[in-house]
């Protein structure tokens, strides 16, 4: 008789699932880096209330917040090729639409998704930096860019770290959706292995634990960075 729950099967398939971990981490890392850049750019445009662009950014953030990540993935997967074909037809360019790997769409969609959330975090963190810090810079004749890079952003990042850490953790978990646009990563591997044996439950337990462990490690990394960032501040007793 077939076992109700098969731990031996579960463990024997861990290596196969784990072999897709680099794909998951790769997508998370690259889209995370994109998200941080997008988030910072959007945050600055909105902080400085740059005309037109800041309104467009607000629209973008609103759209991302108001639609499910899965839908965004599908829109990117089907929409970007349509857009490129349109460009090809209109401008006579020759982008090889079919040659684009699905993971590129995944990275674009996840990067844009996470970037919107990070931009809100960063904007509020920049706003939380004391006005006097800006004034001190300007009075010393530092340029707006020097002011941001050397004084304001380092302080804003410390404030932003805990919510940014949450965003990264969410992003890592959201990579589990990209199988829906045919990218084979860890979650996809679990489904594939599961369907071979009809032992889906065991495989989902395995991926759940792998995600959990990854998130725990990420949490520790962020805790460490935050502690380093806070060394400039006296601990309130």
């Amino acid at each position: 008789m077939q076992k109700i729950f098969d731990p031996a099967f579960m463990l024997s398939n861990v290596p196969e699932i784990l072999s897709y971990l680099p794909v998951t981490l790769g997508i998370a890392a690259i889209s995370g880096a994109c998200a941080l850049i997008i988030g910072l750019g959007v945050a600055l445009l909105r902080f400085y209330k740059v005309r037109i662009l800041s309104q467009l950014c607000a629209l973008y953030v609103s759209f991302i917040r108001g639609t499910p990540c899965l839908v965004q993935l599908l829109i990117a997967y089907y929409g970007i090729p349509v857009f490129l074909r349109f460009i090809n037809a209109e401008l006579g360019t020759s982008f090889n639409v079919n040659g684009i790997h699905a993971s590129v769409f995944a990275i674009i969609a996840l990067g844009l998704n996470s970037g919107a959330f990070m931009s809100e975090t960063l904007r509020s963190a920049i706003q939380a930096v004391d006005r006097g810090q800006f004034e001190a810079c300007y009075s010393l004749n530092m340029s707006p860019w020097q002011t941001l890079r050397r004084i304001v952003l380092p302080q804003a990042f410390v404030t932003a770290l805990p919510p940014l850490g949450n965003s990264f953790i969410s992003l890592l978990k959201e990579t589990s959706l990209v199988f829906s646009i045919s990218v084979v990563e860890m979650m996809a591997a679990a489904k594939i292995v599961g369907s071979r044996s009809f032992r889906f439950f065991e495989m989902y337990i395995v991926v759940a634990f792998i995600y959990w462990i990854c998130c725990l490690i990420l949490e520790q990394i962020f805790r460490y960075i935050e502690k380093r960032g806070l060394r400039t501040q006296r601990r309130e007793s």
Partner: protein
Amino acid sequence: MISVRELKKSYDREHQVLRGINLEVKKGEIVAMIGGSGAGKTTLLRCLNYLETPESGTIRIDDAFIDAQKPTRKHIRALRSKSAMVFQHFNLFNNKTVLENVTEALITVKKVPKKSSEDRGRELLEQVGMLDKAAVYPSFLSGGQKQRVGIARALATEPEVILFDEPTSALDPEWVAEVLGVMQKIAARGITMLVVSHEMRFVRSLATRIVFLSEGRILEDGTPEQIFRNPRYERTSQFLRLADLSLESAAL
């Protein structure tokens, strides 16, 4: 050396803060700007550094000149390079050590090499008695210590004039004396100083000149002797009486 002409500034249509300020300051003068709250002292000071944008009038410091009706970025930078500000709430860079606070502008603005910036920074910290805290972050300092670092930071770029915006009014009484001591030291070196202050000890003992502002205008302008002995306006003597009262209570 400083020449302000017909400087006007309002925050909204109703509320005019500066109603045409004319002020000439010679090199080495130590000018105390006094007046009731809302008189425009701080606004005037901040306009000299262009932290506040005046609507009309002109400002000249040394060879930097700006016309408030057509300021360019270049003119603003030139003007700012002539002055440095000491803030009421210190505004030290929280993410920089005491030494880095002093060297920051030298490195980023004046492009002085790191090594010589640090030598200069240490020298300045020595002068304000803060050298032993060079590696400490501002949040670990007392108010008086912070303001001494603030003064060292302002001195670093060797400005023509140092603008003090109520430098002691955010301090606990016990720290006021040490900051005044440092200011006295700088004053003795002949640096031009414009000081918005309610600290009558400073006004009486250090200032070479007193400017009394009221409702956005300069009402009186003279030596401390003149202003304290025979002010021209009743409003001035009224204000001085109140200020003197606060001096007495501080002495108690």
